[in-house]
């Protein structure tokens, strides 16, 4: 009997279903293999990278003789040993693998020692004698702005005439806001294991989000063609942007040791070295000047964003651009001028971190809204809604992109009701009136986040799919797995295309040998790009299977239907395995690449206009906090989240991204403080001093929901939306709620001066300052 598509039976592991992470069972058993778990090749050397002890100095002389003759040492490498180009930068050519005559941050790589054990390598490195001539270091944004020190030219985006708008506005506010950086604190530190091959080939296992770039940099350093270098990884123990551009240093050094010694080499940074040596989220100083009417409608705004980029450009150009792209968040600004300064400092070169500048731009906007509301004595949510994009002529961003997919109004309406925002806010004010020492705060903040690499050519991806003659499938693509579940989602796509259970799809390591010229797994684009590429590859094979079956069974192609784990060919049904085997016997190619490039996007950098984003992801959160005004200690007591994941590919994984992103964002804005001493040394370089959220920091009352109506209006993979970065910015509601609680401490008489991160110290100072200003005002 012929079966039909009406069957309710479904494959296991198709799209939109809840499916556990493909590696979960291995994670919990300790059998998931990370690079440090790969059995070490015989004779492998352990490499220690020595770091500059000065933030800014000329190297007069570097005497490494004692290092070379230390026990166990196989080789010592510095700039002069680099056969190719001494640079591991992603873009600009300004990140020397080893310092050459000049060091520009405390922690910069100066030389490397390869020895039989890591202890020997480390002990040997201590014997180096480096003669430094100290130069004046610029540590902070303020230092750099005062000195006029920049890594890249300024940039500007303009909409309308902000100057006239500000001058003509009923109300005008200006201020300065600072937002701190953030260490990624991926649990697995930086690591690369390089293994020699034939000729001058090298195979590098690298914990990286960007294998192609690591490949390019290793080849550049070694002076060999890219074909001589293969980069491979199965998974990272976390990335968060920290492993986008940074791993080239570790991979480059390991590969160079291989070249010099012919032995395998491993570079594994311990936690302190990792945190001192590698880049972080940019901290920003943002000046704002806003004009608005008496309702609170923004008429014009001017921003000056100054970012601490560190000693080199790294990805700062695109990061600072994205901060500008998100200076509006969900709001129509009317007339806007956004200026950006990319400050050069003698600190580690800052890099990608979940949100990529977007969060910094966005939080300043939310703070401006809060201040407008405070000035007018209104609920900030009212001001937010008033200024949302929407309505005639109110859909144009400061970079001249039309917002076509705006759903924030619907999301906010739903969340306001489900979170009982208004009643809780009123109750809180009552509590605060009678509570002398503890104050509560609440805030509802929205998120609109642009999806696509703003560097347009990066929006491409490749995949490689093989169907074996037993019907099992080998899946490979250019994306990398760092815990987000990308591999699971892409496998779901392939399972869905072939209508086979996901167990038949083998997920394999990312390698530059299978899919070349890939972009970083970044910008939340992993599933959008690689899902589409894998779908294209699967469809190509499927098309061949259909053509073959039509011919072999003499039926029309439209009489062939892929049902769960089998295929209907006219009146017959064969298993997927059988069809694969028959196709093989008929000499049909069962392997295909797939390729995808994002449509519609374009960007005119000179005019600062275009469509940098394919679409926007939206979400909103309500956070409630309790603040101890005597100490600044605080707790987040309740969180409500409503987030737009489009038609989610896998709600379990998406909830993981929402919650994880939120808590990480909360850490960024509260307990995570990067602290440099006066000598320009970072002193928060381990979990003992750098405090990411712990289990108990998560509020017990944590209610999150994927927006049920979500559906991408653009033709993305199964109409899903990117989920990696946007939820991090939901945590801006925590910062805004803390601001509200500080205001309560001073009887809501003044708008608090509070910068991020809102540590207990920052909060106590803000409380004291608000009380003093309130007293002054009423005196």
């Amino acid at each position, binding site marked *: 009997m012929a079966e039909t598509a009406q069957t309710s039976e479904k494959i296991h592991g198709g799209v939109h279903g809840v499916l556990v992470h493909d590696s979960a069972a291995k994670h919990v058993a300790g059998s998931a293999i990370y690079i440090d778990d790969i059995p070490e090749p015989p004779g492998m050397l352990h490499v220690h990278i020595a770091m500059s002890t000065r933030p800014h100095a000329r190297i007069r002389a570097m005497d490494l003789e004692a290092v070379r003759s230390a026990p166990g040492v196989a080789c010592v490498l510095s700039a002069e040993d680099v056969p190719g180009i001494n640079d591991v930068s992603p873009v600009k050519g300004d990140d020397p693998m080893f310092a050459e005559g000049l060091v520009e941050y405390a922690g910069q790589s100066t030389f490397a020692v390869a020895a039989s054990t890591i202890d020997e390598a480390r002990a040997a490195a201590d014997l180096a004698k480096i003669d430094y001539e100290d130069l004046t270091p610029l540590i902070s944004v303020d230092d750099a702005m005062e000195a006029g020190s920049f890594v890249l030219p300024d940039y500007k985006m303009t909409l309308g005439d902000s100057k006239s708008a500000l001058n003509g506005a009923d109300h005008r506010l200006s201020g300065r806001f600072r937002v701190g950086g953030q260490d990624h604190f991926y649990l697995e530190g930086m690591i690369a294991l390089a293994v020699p091959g034939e000729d001058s080939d090298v195979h590098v296992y690298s914990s990286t989000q960007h294998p192609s770039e690591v490949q390019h940099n290793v080849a550049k350093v070694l002076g060999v063609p890219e074909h001589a270098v293969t980069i491979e990884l199965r998974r990272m123990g976390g990335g968060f942007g920290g492993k986008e551009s940074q791993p080239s240093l570790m991979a480059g050094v390991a590969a160079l040791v291989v070249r010099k010694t012919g032995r395998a080499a491993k570079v594994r940074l311990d936690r302190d070295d990792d945190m001192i040596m590698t880049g972080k989220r940019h901290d920003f100083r943002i000046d704002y000047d806003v004009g608005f009417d008496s309702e609170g409608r923004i008429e014009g705004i001017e921003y000056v964003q100054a970012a601490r980029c560190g000693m080199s450009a790294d990805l700062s150009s695109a990061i600072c651009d994205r901060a500008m792209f998100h200076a509006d968040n969900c709001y129509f600004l009317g007339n806007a001028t956004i200026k950006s300064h990319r400050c050069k400092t003698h600190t580690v070169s800052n890099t990608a971190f979940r949100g990529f500048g977007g969060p910094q731009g966005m939080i300043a906007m939310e703070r401006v809204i809060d201040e407008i509301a405070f000035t007018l004595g209104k609920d900030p949510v009212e001001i937010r809604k008033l200024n949302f994009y929407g309505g005639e002529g109110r859909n144009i961003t400061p970079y001249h992109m039309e917002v076509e997919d705006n759903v924030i109004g619907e999301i906010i309406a739903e969340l306001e009701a489900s979170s009982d925002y208004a009643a809780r806010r009123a109750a809180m004010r009552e509590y605060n009136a009678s509570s002398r020492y*503890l104050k509560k705060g609440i805030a509802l903040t929205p998120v609109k986040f642009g999806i696509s690499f703003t560097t347009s050519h990066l929006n491409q991806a490749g995949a490689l799919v093989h169907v074996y003659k037993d019907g099992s499938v080998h899946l490979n693509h250019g994306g990398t797995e760092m815990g987000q579940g990308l591999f699971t989602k892409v496998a779901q796509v392939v399972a869905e295309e072939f209508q086979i259970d996901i167990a038949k799809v083998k997920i394999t390591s990312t390698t530059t040998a299978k899919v070349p010229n890939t972009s970083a797994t970044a910008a939340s684009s992993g599933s959008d790009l690689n899902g589409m590429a894998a779908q294209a590859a699967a469809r190509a094979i499927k098309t061949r299977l259909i053509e073959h079956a039509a011919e072999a069974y003499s039926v029309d192609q439209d009489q062939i239907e892929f049902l769960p784990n089998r295929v209907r060919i006219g009146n017959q049904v064969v298993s997927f395995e059988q069809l694969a085997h028959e196709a093989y016997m008929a000499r049909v190619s069962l392997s295909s690449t797939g390729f995808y490039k994002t449509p519609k996007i374009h960007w005119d950098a000179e005019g600062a206009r275009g469509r940098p984003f394919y679409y926007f992801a939206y979400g909103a959160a309500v956070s409630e906090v309790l603040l101890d005004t005597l100490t600044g200690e605080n707790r987040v007591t309740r969180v409500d989240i409503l987030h737009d994941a489009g038609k989610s590919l896998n709600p379990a994984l998406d909830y993981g991204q929402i919650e994880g992103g939120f808590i990480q964002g909360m850490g960024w804005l509260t307990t995570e403080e990067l602290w440099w001493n006066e000598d320009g040394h970072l002193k*928060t370089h381990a979990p003992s001093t750098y405090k990411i959220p712990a289990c108990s920091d998560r509020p017990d009352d944590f209610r999150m929901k994927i927006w049920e109506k979500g559906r991408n209006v653009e033709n993305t993979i199964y109409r899903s939306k990117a989920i990696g970065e946007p939820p991090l910015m939901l945590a801006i509601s925590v910062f805004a709620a803390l601001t509200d609680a500080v205001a309560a401490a001073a009887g809501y008489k003044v708008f608090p001066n509070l910068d991020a991160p809102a540590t*207990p110290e920052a909060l*106590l*100072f803000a409380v004291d300052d608000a009380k003093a200003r309130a007293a002054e005002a009423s005196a």
Partner: protein
Amino acid sequence: MRDGIRFLLGHEERAIGTIDPTMTVLRYLREHEHLTGTKEGCAEGDCGACTVVIGELADDGIVYKAVNSCIQFMPLLDGKQLIAVEHLANEDGSLHPAQQAMCDHHASQCGFCTPGFVMSLFAQGENAAAPDRGALKDILAGNLCRCTGYGPILDAGEASVEQGRSDRFERAEEKVSNTLTTWSDDPGVEVHSHGKSYYAPSSADELASLYLEHPDAHIISGLTDVGLWVTKMHRTLPALIYIGNVPELKSIDLTEDAISIGAGVTLAEAHEVLGTHYPDLGELIRRFASLQIRNVATVCGNIANGSPIGDTPPAFIALDAQLVLRHGDERRTIALEDFFIEYGKQDRAPGEFVERVLVPLPEPNVSFGCYKISKRFDQDISAVCGAFSAKFEYGTVEDIRICFGGMAGTPQRATKAEGTLRGGAWDEATVRAAMDALGDDYTPLTDMRGSADYRMRAARNLLFKFFAETADVASETRVLDVPEAAHG
């Protein structure tokens, strides 16, 4: 003493004669046993990725403790059972309930912290007493996850707790217990290798004479401080004396007027008795560090290492605790506050060691409060830790002892502020004057944990908080749920 160590790795016996006495358990597992499920996240006992479980003989079978393998040295395993994540699966290869629950609840993302979480949950499950969600958060406070936001892990924890204990460790407990019991007859051990020596004496007298012989040796117990000298500072420690096998030092004795805590007593072991008598002290100990740390770190080690922050010393000094020091056969008892001379210097002669600390029992009319201020509530080091013990008589302060950590080179009393308060009315004006006087008592430093300005403001406000909690009991003053406080 016996030469070389013996322990159970999972359920297999291991006997090792020569091993670097400062080789960490983490490195041993990964490099020697090729058990790579246990991860290094920080090498300082702060992230929990390296969590393993140690089975130790107790009165009623085996007690299982989650510990950080990155700062535990191998010789400490002698006579114990070491359990790593690879050992958990059932005999048929199926996942342990704690592992299965983590899968079912989507509790792993990148997976690197996951084995550590699994081990913390496993240890909890083995020790019965199903925790509620609050207790679960405390059990997991020493495991950092950067991906999940913790919710799914807590859900998994609750689910695995509900399943109860049914695993190969339960089934093999009697056998393991027999092995460890046999070994316990001969607890003294020494290891000489790699130019280093390790001694584990089995009596207090033996310890006293060993230390006289080797006054340059480092006395160790939990290794939560000394371990970092090796893993973070890369120091070589030529001689170590482990006191964990000395039964006399493992006791907590209640005398007529004091709680007497031996030098080998861990914070976990002292938690209950101290918390019963002083709820704030119980909370301080809970927040002292993660369970992995509290399971091995000792109360007296926290004193003997002379940290300027310390956490327990300020509280103990406010309570006027006494310290018993032993040198050979001689003992002396001093006030704890006199032990701390200046930063890095304590009143302890070569060959002399801290034997016990005596914490006075609560007295009538005495109020005690202590407060720890840190960037994060759990597993963090204090910026300021303030402790207050005041005796009130008809609204006046008959006596008060105030001690702060983090405000000077040692935990130090606020004598000027105390003087301002002593004999005066317990009212806001006097308290504000005493808050000012703290400026004469201390000149704190600025560092990554807090600026001098913040430390001073917070210290002053903590005094005010103590006042508020004793004089204005109707007002809420704490953002954390605290056990019933012993107010006024």
